[in-house]
């Protein structure tokens, strides 16, 4: 049992448990949305002084910051104590495609060494790619009013059609980046 537990979890365990997180947050009178924390953090750091969008009672969102803090600790616990291996069992097709990019650790590690390894600090290109990606995620999530948790999980579960538009947008952007831009970046 414990042995099974320490293996990567299949989708039919992960998905329902994410739904459980949504359920617990709604049941306690809140909502499921992780990118709101980025706005709250901007506000807490004083962004409201210049930009009205960040002028709100951010302390009322502190429950969500507690969720985010827990998510950090959860990542620590899972990686340190609950994993006998962190290698991701990717499909052979993906491993072969990534090999062409020079990602020789595909299928053997959790994250690509090229972008997330200790050496990336000396790779200006890795900095640029992660920085661009993060910027687009932050900008896009707030523009769309939510991210994967708020729209794809919470919004679709509640049959909100604006969330469906947002999720279609996620895939238009994601597929374009994945198929037409990434091949030129690596």
């Amino acid at each position: 049992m414990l042995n099974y537990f320490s293996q990567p979890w299949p989708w039919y365990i992960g998905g329902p448990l994410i739904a459980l997180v949504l359920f617990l947050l709604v049941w306690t009178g809140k909502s499921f949305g992780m990118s709101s924390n980025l706005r709250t953090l901007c506000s807490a750091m004083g962004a409201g002084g210049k930009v009205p969008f960040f002028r709100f009672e951010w302390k009322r969102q502190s429950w969500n910051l507690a969720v985010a803090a827990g998510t950090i600790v959860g990542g620590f616990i899972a990686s340190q104590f609950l994993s006998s291996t962190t290698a991701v069992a990717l499909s052979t097709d993906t491993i072969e495609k990534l090999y062409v990019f020079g990602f020789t650790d595909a299928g053997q590690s959790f994250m690509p060494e090229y972008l997330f390894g200790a050496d990336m600090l000396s790779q200006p290109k890795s900095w640029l790619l992660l920085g661009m990606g993060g910027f687009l995620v932050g900008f896009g999530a707030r523009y769309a009013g939510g991210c994967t948790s708020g729209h794809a999980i919470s919004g679709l579960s509640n049959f909100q059609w604006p969330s469906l538009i947002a999720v279609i947008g996620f895939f238009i952007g994601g597929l374009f980046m994945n198929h037409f831009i990434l091949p030129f970046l690596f």
Partner: protein
Amino acid sequence: MRTFIYFSIGILFGVVLFKSEVASWFRIYEMFQFDSFHMYGVIGSAVFCGALSLFLLKKFQVKSILDGEEIRIAPKQNVWKRYLFGGVLFGLGWALAGACPGPMFTLLGAGFWPVLLILFSALLGTYCYGFFRDKLPH
């Protein structure tokens, strides 16, 4: 006490994101290549179970367990531009950085320090949205 409850829910979320590999850059790449069912299975079963639980909460008019207030799910706006344009920008970033906001926190805890760069850039992106908000079509 409440803070502790939300902190605990967060721990569950963080563990699940790591153990089900949703936080892995590789899994996001694989998803957009349509090479594996894994990510679609995670998102699909989460939406299925989520829809079922929200339906039951509404059907039985369950009150919030913490303060007994009525459970209300905030409606989204009746527009489309912001969802489509914002969604596309988010998707571009998601496929590049391989991390959406939830997994960013998980990966930080798992010790992938370069994620700090993604997180700070995401904060900058959020700030820029707020700055240019009035000039953007919504």
